[in-house]
Structure formats: structure tokens, C-alpha cells
């Protein structure tokens, strides 16, 4: 694999800006590149995006490859995977880092199969094996009950990283880097899939992934009515409402507030888990929270293994008293 060299980070762009996960990817990418003694490059794909290259350099990249094409204005897996295949085929990195986002989770495996190599999705730890110089890729498996470390012999070694699992570097505007453009060479007539519409679900207030406080409910809340009480506490704390999977599957709350392996991965300052048992798949989405406070009637519930503070009892009795006291304390 001598021909593959360096670490590349696919820096996802949305609404004309780099996503935070791009800087997180460059942060860990810098560490891996330094461990290998090889360069770090950033890969930008889109339309009219060349102006973002200095940000990628400030975030740690030595080189920025830009694939700029009007056909890439809107995200479509089919066109993006073709553009990536061409670019990554030219860059030939030993490691390619992407974000575990709506796009990354489908682009990474498709790209890996096209390039005859392996991908590991949703990594929470990455390191270079000092003996073999190969990438050790750690990811949660069994819904978070366990973690596995994977490695492979084919390049590029493709991974996606979990949101907030890695730290970005402080941007350094004085860093220097080279910008190289790569042609997408897309054939519009060969595109089979078509995006007809983007639908944004109604979500009033603060977005769950940006909130400092998240008040989340589980199956034990019992219905949409109960979630109004959780929403009241969330509003009071200027936070957002969340839920484990059952309330979403039952239609009590919008699917977009689901916290867990199949929903949002969040890391707020405070996570208040109400009537949530704490299944591994749910904890995958919130275990990065700074402080977890749990209310559950079962003292043996798994959530208490992760919580800093807890009350054992029926949430219908605990929550109103808790909310009233918080209201009083916040006002004073």
C-alpha cells in the first residue's frame, strides 16, 4: 500500500458552511497524520465552495482539495459518491475520515465498496498501531453494550466519526496550506436518482443538538399528554425536549427528537432522563452528556449506572414537584 499516503478528511458542507464535524475530523486527522509522519489534507465537495478552503487550513489541513461543480450544488448520494470516488482515487490517502452524518453514513460504505476497501462507521476512538502503522478503529457495537476495535490491510482505511467524539483544534488563521482543485467529471445523463423535496419537520424552540439542557422521556411517560410536562420543564430551563425510541415509534413526539443510536447523538451540559430505563441503544446517544439526572421507578434501571443524581419514584409525582421547585429557584 506504499502508494497510499497521508490522512484525508472529507469536510462536509451544509448551507455554505463547514459542519462542526469537519473540524472535529481535522482535529483527530491531525493527530493521526502526525503519528504517521504524513500530511493531512481536507476534501471539500460542493458548488461555489472554494472560499471555505482557508477555514480547513486553519483547522489543521496541510492541503485542501476542492471538487467544485454545479451538479454538486444539492446533496445527492449518487453524484457525491462519484465525485468522492474520483477525488479519493487521485489523492490516494492511507486514511479517509468522514462524519457519521445523514450523508457520511451512506457515502462511506458506498465509497469503500467502490474502492475495494473497508469502512468502519461511527468510530469513537482512532489511533495508529505503533507496530503496524495501521489504523485502529473503535466503534460501539451491540447497540452500545460493547465496543469493537477493527483494523484492515486495504487502503484507504475509511472511517466515519461520531459527532462530538473528537475535539477540533483551535482555529489558527496563520497556518499555511496549498489549495488544489479536482474536476468532478460528472455526467448528468447517468444520474438515476432524483431528490424531489426536502421536508423539515416542525420543531419549535432550540434544536436538541445545540441545547445545553435536554429533558428526555421514555416509554414510561405513557403518551403525548405526559410529554407536555417534560416540554414545560425544558422551556423553563431554556432547553430542548428529547425522547428515547419508543415514544417516537408510538408517535407521541416527533421522530426528530429521538436520542440514541438510531436518532440524535448529543452531549449537552445536563441531560434529564425521565422514565427512561437506559437501554444501551439510548445511552449511545446521550452518554457524552456532562451531567445526567434520572427519574425512574426502578432502582435497578440501567440509567442509574450513568446518572450523577437520581430519584427513585413515579415520574408523575416527582416531575411536578421538581419542576415547581426549579421554577421557584430560577425566579429567585
Amino acid at each position, binding site marked *: 500500500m506504499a502508494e497510499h499516503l497521508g490522512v484525508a478528511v472529507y469536510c462536509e458542507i451544509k448551507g455554505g458552511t463547514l459542519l462542526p464535524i469537519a473540524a472535529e475530523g481535522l482535529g483527530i486527522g491531525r493527530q493521526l497524520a502526525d503519528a504517521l509522519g504524513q500530511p493531512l489534507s481536507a476534501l471539500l465537495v460542493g458548488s461555489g465552495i472554494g472560499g471555505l478552503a482557508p477555514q480547513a487550513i486553519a483547522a489543521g489541513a496541510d492541503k485542501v482539495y476542492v471538487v467544485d461543480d454545479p451538479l454538486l450544488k444539492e446533496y445527492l*448520494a449518487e453524484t457525491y459518491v462519484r465525485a468522492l470516488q474520483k477525488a479519493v482515487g487521485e489523492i490516494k490517502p492511507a486514511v479517509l475520515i468522514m462524519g457519521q452524518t445523514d450523508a457520511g453514513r451512506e457515502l462511506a*460504505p458506498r465509497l469503500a465498496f467502490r474502492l475495494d476497501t473497508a469502512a468502519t462507521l461511527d468510530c469513537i476512538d482512532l489511533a495508529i498501531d505503533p507496530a503496524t502503522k495501521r489504523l485502529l478503529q473503535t466503534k460501539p457495537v*451491540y447497540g452500545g453494550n460493547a465496543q469493537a476495535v477493527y483494523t484492515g490491510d486495504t487502503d484507504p482505511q475509511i472511517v466515519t466519526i461520531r459527532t462530538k467524539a473528537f475535539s477540533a483544534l483551535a482555529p489558527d488563521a496563520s497556518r499555511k496550506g496549498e489549495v488544489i482543485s479536482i474536476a468532478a467529471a460528472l455526467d448528468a445523463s447517468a444520474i438515476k436518482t432524483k431528490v424531489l423535496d426536502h421536508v423539515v419537520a416542525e420543531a419549535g424552540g432550540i434544536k436538541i443538538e445545540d441545547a445545553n439542557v435536554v429533558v428526555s422521556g421514555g416509554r414510561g411517560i405513557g403518551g403525548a399528554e405526559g410529554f407536555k410536562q417534560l416540554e414545560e420543564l425544558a422551556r423553563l430551563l431554556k432547553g430542548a425536549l428529547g425522547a428515547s425510541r419508543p415514544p417516537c415509534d408510538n408517535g407521541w413526539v416527533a421522530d426528530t427528537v429521538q436520542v440514541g443510536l438510531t436518532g440524535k447523538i448529543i452531549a449537552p451540559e445536563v441531560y434529564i432522563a425521565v422514565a427512561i430505563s437506559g437501554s444501551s441503544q439510548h445511552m449511545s446517544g446521550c452518554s457524552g452528556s456532562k451531567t445526567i439526572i434520572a*427519574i425512574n421507578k426502578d432502582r435497578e434501571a440501567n440509567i442509574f449506572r450513568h446518572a450523577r443524581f437520581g430519584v427513585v419514584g413515579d415520574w408523575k409525582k416527582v416531575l411536578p*414537584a421538581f419542576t415547581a421547585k426549579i421554577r421557584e429557584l430560577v425566579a429567585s
Partner: protein
Amino acid sequence: MINIIVCMKQVIDPEAPPSTFKIDPATGKAEMHGAPPVIDPYGEYAVEASLKVKDAVGGKLTAISLGKGLLREVVKKPLAMGADELILLEDDAFAGLDSWTTATALAAAIKKKGGYDLILCGREASDTNSGQTGPGIAEILGLPCVTLARKIDVKDRTARVERVTSVGYDVIEVPLPAVITVSNEIGEPRYPTIKGIMAAKKIEPLVWKPADIGITPSAGARSRTKKLFQPVYEGKCEFVENDNIEEAAIALAVKIREAKIL
């Protein structure tokens, strides 16, 4: 009338309590102590999505499962739910495959079966959480692929798919044949009916070995597991206790306010 293929997997029960999860130190394999294996829930959503399409436009549904030691009462569940036939890729050599080899074997079986219009998979399996089988099959067979479906409407050789995103969903149109992966937002899988269970009993699965689909599973893996371990959580929860539960709630509020957490 269309031909649908759905891929699903036998897994250790992901709904069993986390306390029953163990990794056998001798074999390095995971198990749910005392809980029998089940059909992977994400695969079950894919079966449900397949049946919804079959209900709407008519057709034949073939379920394919891959592994070793496949319990017939487990892998026959899609038949009981309404699938028409079952293909099992069953062999010791099919145990613990990486994503590459899994997709390669399934794609080879799908090719051998032939005549497909729609191939559905779960968004990921609940054991490996790999999320690559569907996209991998699509790439190997050279088919278009849409992931994370919450709704699938088939009309005139085209599928209109609602794809789950972090803010809502996208509507994507794809010509058939295509591969679609299914998310839990598709809706709860139906329960097998008594009639379905009786019908499933009479259907004998086709069992294919690696030689039947022309692959050598031990060769060509792209990824290997170096280590499988259980992270340890310290469990330092401070319980706020009081015989009067409302008083406990108030004490909790005071405590976290004093600790400047809220």
C-alpha cells in the same frame, strides 16, 4: 407484480436487559445470557416495508438470511409475517463475516436467485451496527441505492422513498431495480397471523452453501476484529431519598441548583 428480496439476520436479542449481555472470554463472542436469539429488529422493519409494498402493488417476497446455526423458528418469522419463500445461506464458514464478505455473499445469492425488482435491508444490524450491507449489495450489483427509508411507494417501475434526515425527511425518486435500506420510522412490524404461522410451517427453506453461490467466505475479508470488550461504567449515582416522594423531588432540585448544575 414485482419481485422483492429482503435480507435479515438472526441476532442475540437486543431488547434483553443490558445486564444479561456478556462477552465469553474463551471465544470472544457476545451473548445475551439466557435470552434466545431473534430476528434482527431492523431487518424486521425491512420485512414490514416489503410487505407494505407487496400489499400495495402485489408481488412475491423472498427473504434471505445468512449465518450459521440458524434456528428455523427464528428465521421463518418473515414467512409467518407474509413472505413467500426463504433462502438460507447457512454454513460454518458464514459465521462472523465482515461487511465486505456479508454483502458479497448476499449479492451472489441475489444474483443466483435473479429476477429482482426491489432489494430491502434494515438500516443496520443490531449486533454489529455496521450499516453497510445494503449499500454494499447495491455497489456490487451496480444498482441505485436509497438509505434510511421511512416510506416507500412503488409505481410504474419507480420507487418514491422518504429518507429520514436529522431535520425531517427527503423525498427521493429511484428507478427499479434498486436497493433500499429501511429505518424504524417505517412503522411497527406486523404480528404473524395464525394462518401465516401455519403457512410458514409448510414452507421448506432453500439452503445454499458457499459453493452454491460461488464464493469463499474465508478469503477476501477487508476488515478484522482485533478486540471486543465491554466498557465499564463506574455508577456513582447519588440517590436523593425521602419517604415522601415529592419531598425527594424538591431536595433533588435544591441539590442540583446548589451544585450549580442548573
